């Protein structure tokens, strides 16, 4: 975190100054480790074993927060009799249709996007609050992780038992009624074929310890760019509409009726789904959207499959994609398998790149003479040259004001998309074809300001916030949205950011008044109902945050309560309750159908209801827990240009590689390699190796080394350092040292400082839930000297 988020890390340092214990678990000793109380180096790709070991410790040492677990998680829910765990099937689960509570009704396929269906989970039957029923989630969880012992963690992760136990006891000692602990993570946890399940394991730990919905707790995803959170909320993702509404799928969601019935939950907050959907369609299609035409629902494209990044690029390379917009990304350097990325770009008819500098993605054709792709480059305005908001990892929207007009041809993304839209509409203006109606019916008439006709960002913010259609007055909150076409709202979770016509995101007060706007409804801490006990009293004075005021008969406290504000803790829904009336007064997790945190995920995760340790696609060891070596549902791309290594013990690729960023550069380098003050700080691509690996392979500090995978080879300067120590893994006669090679990935063929890109080495292989690549754990070889040319 100190490496990649030095500014946010100031708060960690402040917590440390107040006595917080800081633990850093990472293959490398980084700038974070340098100021941590404890650094635990582990083998890249062994995170679920490590976290699962913590789960096992919490359960076997009886360190969980029992009242919280019983009341606020699904620990007591009883599972179906035919559910079989990975312990029963040697690393596989029984069919997904069995991943259900005993009461359970239908389980939907959630391969793409968000599932809002709790599986009819509000019934609240079939629970065992004593947590002793052999098929209750708690007991299943206990059995599932029972073999994740400290000894197994040590031999799998390459950590010492004592340091692992030190982590466990520090975490447990600092959790409970009076204390809370937080997890911070970034792509070191997510860029794996089991990425989603790593986060799931952390969620299980935090739920067992009572660290969710309480001040000082939580699991904080540190994002890679200034507003990556914003680009997920108002998404650039292929499978989501704004506000985490799922993108309609062909076959399932062919009509408005089926879309609404598929995604409206029977209980919990997602019962409100139709209001957000209709308001979104009203925002996009205005007066054209009417009840009679299902609010123009059929204007939306339907997903026909997985159109995530790697699939699209593979299709491109196969000539199935003709045009490509690249904005604020540099996939030739920043994405996996650079050669395949370049081959894909070279197969296009046209490519549009918008960036500050002529990045590699705009310049790739210089090294491929046969390329016939027509490349258009548009210079981009910097954040200082445009108004707008950032949304940070804490869901906080913060407005930034333009300081100067963008020089020359530089323009904002908003300007580019808006004026592109105007020109396209002009081209189709006379069309009577029904297929052109979506473009022509789109609400696309923002006022413009300034010398460049820049769209007024406040008009955009107002549309995102939502307004009543009749008078155009901004709505105060998403609770004012309706499903009858009387309201329009571009992103329901951002509703309230322009309440009363005031730009809430621009609030900047150092005096304790709200700063910016945190979605939803300006709540700073999600699920904060869980900071009070089931009867509404704070778990402890020290950790009081939101509580029930019986005199005023309202929830109150230090934050906007994440609950229906006048719903008493004693409220229980009637069996025929619908909508928000289904939310009981003691169930804090209102977005879930059953109102509790899920230790066991009956739906929503493709690769299993519980996290299981699988080895990476390419590993140095066999799976010590199951004969199932790798995630059985991982996504592979079987192509000649995407070869994989052996699953483990590949003699040609005996070492582990992990990739990462440095403080001095920004991701693929577009914002740093062209700046001399940053470029001089880390001027060349280098690899980090331990002294013992350097000795074994004859690598000299400061000289060249070549790192190879089956995809390609890259050359890097050698930095020999004890910060990436060899780790002892395996047991008995198989116990041996594992060497890891660290590769920062910032460099490419353009810019002030140049070098090979680490991502050239990475294959196309992905997590099945979100199609994220596995760039944090793979295998490779390293030799002294420069690569062959």
């Amino acid at each position, binding site marked *: 975190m*100190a490496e990649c988020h*030095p*500014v946010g*890390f*100031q708060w960690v*340092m402040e917590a440390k*100054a107040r006595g917080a214990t800081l633990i850093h678990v990472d293959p490398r*000793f980084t*700038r*974070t*480790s*340098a*100021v941590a109380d404890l650094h635990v180096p582990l083998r890249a790709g062994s995170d679920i074993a490590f976290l699962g070991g913590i789960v096992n410790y919490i359960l076997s040492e009886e360190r969980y927060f029992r009242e919280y677990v019983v009341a606020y998680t699904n620990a007591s829910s009883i599972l179906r009799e035919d559910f079989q765990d990975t312990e029963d099937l040697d690393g596989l689960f029984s069919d997904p249709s069995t991943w259900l509570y005993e009461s359970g009704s239908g389980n939907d396929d959630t391969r793409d996007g968000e599932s809002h269906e709790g599986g009819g989970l509000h019934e609240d039957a079939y629970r065992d609050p004593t947590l002793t029923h052999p098929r209750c989630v708690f007991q299943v969880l206990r059995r599932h992780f029972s073999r994740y012992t400290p000894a197994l963690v040590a031999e799998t992760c390459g950590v010492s038992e004592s340091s692992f136990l030190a982590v466990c006891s520090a975490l447990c000692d600092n959790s409970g009624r009076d204390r809370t602990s937080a997890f911070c993570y970034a792509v070191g946890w997510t860029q794996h074929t089991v990425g989603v399940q790593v986060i799931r394991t952390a969620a299980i730990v935090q739920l067992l310890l009572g660290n969710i919905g309480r001040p000082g707790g939580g699991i904080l995803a540190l994002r890679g760019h200034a507003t990556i959170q914003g680009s997920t909320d108002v998404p650039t993702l292929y499978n989501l509409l704004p506000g985490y509404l799922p993108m309609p799928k062909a076959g399932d969601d062919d009509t408005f009726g089926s879309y609404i019935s598929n995604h409206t939950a029977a209980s919990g907050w997602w019962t409100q789904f139709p209001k957000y959907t209709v308001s979104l369609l009203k925002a996009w299609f205005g007066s054209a959207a009417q009840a009679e035409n299902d609010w123009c629902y059929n204007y939306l494209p339907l997903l026909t499959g997985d159109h995530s990044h790697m699939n699209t690029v593979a299709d491109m390379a196969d000539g199935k994609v003709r045009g490509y917009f690249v904005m604020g990304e540099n996939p030739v350097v920043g994405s996996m398998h650079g050669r395949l990325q370049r081959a894909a770009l070279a197969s296009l008819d046209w490519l549009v790149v918008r960036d500050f500098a002529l990045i590699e993605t705009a310049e790739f054709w210089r090294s491929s003479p046969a390329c016939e792709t027509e490349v258009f480059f548009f210079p981009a305005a910097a954040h200082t040259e445009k108004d707008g908001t950032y949304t940070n990892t804490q869901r906080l929207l913060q407005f930034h004001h333009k300081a100067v007009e963008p020089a020359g041809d530089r323009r904002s993304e908003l300007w580019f998309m808006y004026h592109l839209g105007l020109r396209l509409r002009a081209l189709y203006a006379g069309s009577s074809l029904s297929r052109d109606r979506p473009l022509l019916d789109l609400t696309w008439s923002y006022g413009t300001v300034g010398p460049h006709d820049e769209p007024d960002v406040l008009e955009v913010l107002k549309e995102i916030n939502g307004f009543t259609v009749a008078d155009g007055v901004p709505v105060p909150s998403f609770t004012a949205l309706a499903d009858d076409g009387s309201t329009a709202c571009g992103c329901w979770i951002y509703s309230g950011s322009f309440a009363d016509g005031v730009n809430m995101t621009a609030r900047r007060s150092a005096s304790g008044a709200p700063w910016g706007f945190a979605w939803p409804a300006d709540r700073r801490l999600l699920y904060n109902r869980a900071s009070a006990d089931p009867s509404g009293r704070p778990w402890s004075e020290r950790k009081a945050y939101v509580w029930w005021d019986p005199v005023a008969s309202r929830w109150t406290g230090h934050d906007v309560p994440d609950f229906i504000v006048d719903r008493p803790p004693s409220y229980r829904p009637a069996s025929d309750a619908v909508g928000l009336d289904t939310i009981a007064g003691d169930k804090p997790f209102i977005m879930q159908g059953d109102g509790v945190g899920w230790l066991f995920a009956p739906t929503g995760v493709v690769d299993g209801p519980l996290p299981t340790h699988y080895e990476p696609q390419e590993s140095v060891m066999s799976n010590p827990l199951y004969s199932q070596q790798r995630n059985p549902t991982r996504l592979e791309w079987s192509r000649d240009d995407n070869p994989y290594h052996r699953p483990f013990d590949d003699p040609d690729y005996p070492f582990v590689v992990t990739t990462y960023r*440095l*403080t*001095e550069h920004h991701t693929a380098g577009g914002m740093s390699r062209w700046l*001399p*003050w*940053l*470029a*001089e*700080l*880390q*001027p*060349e691509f*280098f690899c980090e190796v331990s002294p013992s690996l350097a000795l074994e392979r004859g690598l000299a*500090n*400061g000289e060249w080394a070549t790192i190879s995978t089956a995809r390609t080879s890259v050359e890097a*300067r*050698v*930095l*020999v*350092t*004890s*910060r990436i120590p060899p780790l002892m893994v395996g047991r008995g006669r198989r116990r041996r040292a594992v060497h890891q090679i660290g590769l920062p990935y910032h460099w490419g063929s353009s810019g*002030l*400082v140049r070098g090979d890109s680490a991502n050239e080495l990475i294959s196309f292989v992905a997590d099945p839930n979100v199609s994220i690549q596995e760039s944090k754990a793979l295998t490779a070889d390293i030799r002294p000297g420069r690569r062959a040319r």
Partner: protein
Amino acid sequence: MTVGFFTDTTVCIGCKACEVACKQWNQLPDDGFSFTGMSYDNTVQLGASTWRHVAFIERPPTGDDGAGDKFSWLMMSDVCKHCETSACLEACPTGSIIRTEFDSVFVQPDICNGCGYCVSACPFGVIDRREDDGRAWKCTLCYDRLGADMTPACAQACPTESIVFGELSSLHERAASRVEALHASGHTEAYLYGVDQSGTDGLHAFFLLTDEPEVYNLPSAPVAYSKTNGRAWRSMVAAGVAMAVAAVVSARR
């Protein structure tokens, strides 16, 4: 008013924001793009174009089997010390180097003739001549910002308050209580460098360190010229007296 920097190395995270903020505010050129292989340090040292420099020191573990100290990585943002008794200022023959109203040491670039006496005089190796124009350059303590009541760029950019700017005596108090707190929490190796220093009469940019000064490339006993001048004169007088005595004695024989 006497102002200065207190640099607490125990909270430095090595982000180099100070280096970049300094170069940006002062519009300094880069120092070249070469990989050094010295941990994460590629600017190497303070110089004519690098007025803040973050040192990275990898200390291997001591003892076997974790018996001694664990591996550690020290980071320290170095800067001109703005010495109370300043060797560069004393060495400057043109009057280019002056002491400002903030008691900082400032090189006036329009007067500097590039003689370089200050370069060899500085006991810390801070000040340096720029090859292309020959003149001597170093940290100005952001003299132009101080005049506008602004914090120097490096301290303003530091995210962890490792670099604190302020009135010197209050910085001394803050630093002393920080050392006290560290000692209380078991970090008895923490100490202040540059508060009581006879060779310079104290530094206006002083440091909290956890190892010997030499580990951070700092001299353990820096001395300004004038301190040794007195001794040199005394030695010369003593020698003269001794010779005179010797001459008298030998004449009597």
